Every structure is written in C-alpha cells, then in structure tokens.
C-alpha cells in the first residue's frame, strides 16, 4: 500500500487510476477458520477454483494443489461447494 500523501501530492479531485491489489494481503482478514484439503478425496472438479471470490485456489496447470493463504479470507465457500467433502474448515492457530 502506498504511503499517505500530503495534500499537495494527491491527484486532483482524488481521481484514482487503476492499480493492482496484489500487494494487499487480504488473507490477514481471516478470522478464525481456514480451509484444509484431504487431497486423496479431491476429484479435481475445480468447483472451489470457480467459486473462490479471492482467486485463492492454487493450481498446477489444471490440477488443484491447495490454497493461497495470503488472499484466502476464510469465507468457507470452497468447503461448501466441494462435492466430495475433501475441503474442510479448520481452526486457525493464532
């Protein structure tokens, strides 16, 4: 995140130009639970990858590999849509 600017440095009228949100590690917003996978039960349907609102499902090519905890907010959608119960939410240790 960029440093706060003083009033002379801000763009006129506060106009915002596009920037990447990649440096914002929103995974820090998770409160309590995180997804975990039992890979043996995964059928690689990629429903979790389709549903994840934070693009936090990691793939190797087209093969499910796990979660990117830098961006996973712990919303539980992946565990909800997983047809085989391979994904479960577990308590996150502080």
């Amino acid at each position: 995140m960029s440093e706060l600017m003083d009033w002379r440095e801000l763009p006129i009228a506060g106009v915002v130009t596009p920037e990447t949100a990649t440096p914002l590690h929103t995974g820090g917003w998770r409160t309590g639970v995180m997804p975990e996978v039992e890979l043996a039960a995964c059928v690689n349907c990629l429903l979790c990858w389709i549903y994840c609102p934070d693009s936090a499902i990691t793939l190797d090519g087209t093969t499910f590999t796990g979660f990117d905890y830098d961006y996973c907010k712990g919303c539980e959608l992946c565990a909800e849509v997983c047809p085989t119960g391979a994904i479960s939410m577990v308590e996150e240790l502080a």
Partner: protein
Amino acid sequence: MKELLTGGEAVAHGMRQVDPDVMPVYPITPQTPIIQGFAKFVADGRAHAELINVESEHSAMSAAIGSALAGARTMTATSSQGLALMAEVVYIAASMRAPIVMALGNRALSGPINIHCDHSDSMLIRDSGVIQLFAENAQEAYDFTIAAPRIAEHPDVLLPVLVCLDGFTITHASEPVELLADEQVRRFVGEYQVPQPLLNVSAPATHGPFAMPDNYFELRRAQASALDAAHDVIALVGHELKFLTGRPMAAIEPYRLDDADRVIVALGSTAGTVKDAVDELRAEGEHVGLLRICSFRPFPAVEVAAALADVTTVIVLDRADSPGGTPPLHAELAAVLFGSDSTLRGHVYGLGGRDIHPSDVRDIFAGGQPAYFGLRGDECLV
C-alpha cells in the same frame, strides 16, 4: 457597437459566443430569459450546444458534472430555489473540480416565496468551493460570461464559476451593452482541454471516489488551494479581457477612494446606485467612496485591506442576512479589518427585492441608520 439588451439577453449572447458543447438546464425565474435566449440561438443554428432538458436543477448540475469531466465545455444557469435544489451537487461539482460555468440570476430564497433579488441564494453555497463573480450591470454580466470559462478551465483552478447577476435589476432591465465580435470571443476562450477525460478508455480512472478520514481532509485542502490560485487567474484573465473590451475586470473595483473617509462596500447592482450617490456627495465636497467586491469567492482579502488602509469608516451593505450571526459580507470585512483603526458598521438591506435609491445611500453615508436598512419598524441604529 452597442445593443440594447437585458442582462439575461447579454449573458445569452455571451454564451452563444463562447458556444459551449453542452447546456443542461431547468427554467426558473429570473434566470429563464438567459436559457430562453440561448435556446433560441441553438434553434436558429447560431449556437451548437446540446441542450438537455433535465427534470430538475439537481439533475442539471449532475449532468453538467459528467459532461464537463468528459471534456465538453458546459454551461448552465439557475436562480434561488433552483440553486437550493442543486446545492448538494454544486459541492460535488467543486470537489470533482468540474469547470462548469453557471449564470445565477440572484433571487431571494423562500420563504416566504418571492421572485425578486437578494443574495441569499449565493450565500447558501458560499462555502461550496465555487467561484462567485458578482456583476454590477448587464455589460459586466456579459464580460464575466466571456471570462468565466477561462477562469474555470485554468489548470490551476478547475472549479465551477458562477456569474451572479441581480435578478430583475440586471436580468430583466435593458441597457446598452457592447458585444465583442464572435471571432474575438472564440479566440479568447480557445479550446477546452480536460486534464483527465472521464470516458478515455485507454486511461481509465475513477472520478469522485470515496475518501475516508485518512484522505478527505487533504482533498478538501487541495480544493481550497484551487480557490487561492483563482486570485491570480482572475487577475490574469481580467487583464487579457481588458485588451479586447477596454473595460477593467478585477476582483475589486475601487471607486473614488482617494482621500475617502467613509467607504461603502457592496456587491452587485447596488454598487451602481452607490456610485451615483458618491458622485453627488463628492460634488458637495464630501469624502466618500465605494469599494465594490466583484469576486466574492475567492474573497480578495489582501486587495480589500490595501484599498481600505486609510479609510476611517467602512460601511458594509449585505443583501443577505445570517440569522443569529453576522451577515456574510460584513463578516468578511470584519476579518479583513481586524486590528485596523477603521470603524466598521454594516446594514442588511434590500431583502426580497426591496429597492435601494441614491437618497438611501446618502442616508447610509450620513449614519445613524437602522442595522436593517429600509425595514419598517427597526429601531436598532448603527
């Protein structure tokens, strides 16, 4: 060549010559002759703006913001209740730095409902961050209309500019007005260049973003600095325009201030009345003068202080009250004169279009008049 025009017609001619791209507008007395005149120019092919018949003044200013930020030179006009309805969006226009030019036919705010002149509508949006220029007559309303786009669109300013002309007294009264040639105006205003066009798909941007407590204060300060920058730009544009018109245009007009011991400070058409009274009193050997404030926002405090440096008594005429507080122009003068040796007194006058005559001005110079001048039953003398 001079033409006999009302102030409204003169502004409509100014708008025709500036030839804006877009004009979203809603009719209201006493502004209507302006847009009526301009609409006729469009219908006759003498102006080329897209006229947008919006459903309210709130929409007029909203459309004007989008249009101005997209890169279209945009003008509109309103009065009184129209400005009150528009007020929310006027603040947004200023904060989005949209260089819209708006003619304001000054009219008293309701209630009671009234259609005649005072400055309560202007004062309603005093702190919105827009520039407000007060014309003394139809000629100046025309001159300001030509100057306004240059001030509004200057890269250091980028703010809405209001050309304020007293309702009926200026909007509807006919005077000889000298118009520039169309070509002169076209060259003077030039092409409108918007710094970051709203619809530029190759450089997308978010205009009017949400500002949290970590940035709101800074953005407000930046906006205030644009009004500070407008001081110089008004002087510059006024200087340039004078080359074409031969008429001075500046933030203040000192009138017969040499050796003046009593000076009236006023806005708008009343200044013309004061000038007549000053001339009469000067002919009788009295040392009186007038300081007319042409730019109320930004307020030219430095120039005002300098102009009044040797004046014993400053008399402020406010055509708007601030119930429970100090009237707006009086408050500005109190701030400017704080710590000086001048005596300051003020009168609220002319609300809802009550006339003021040269004989009234003579009485005001003489002193011992009510704080609410021209009011029946006021015994509070100043």
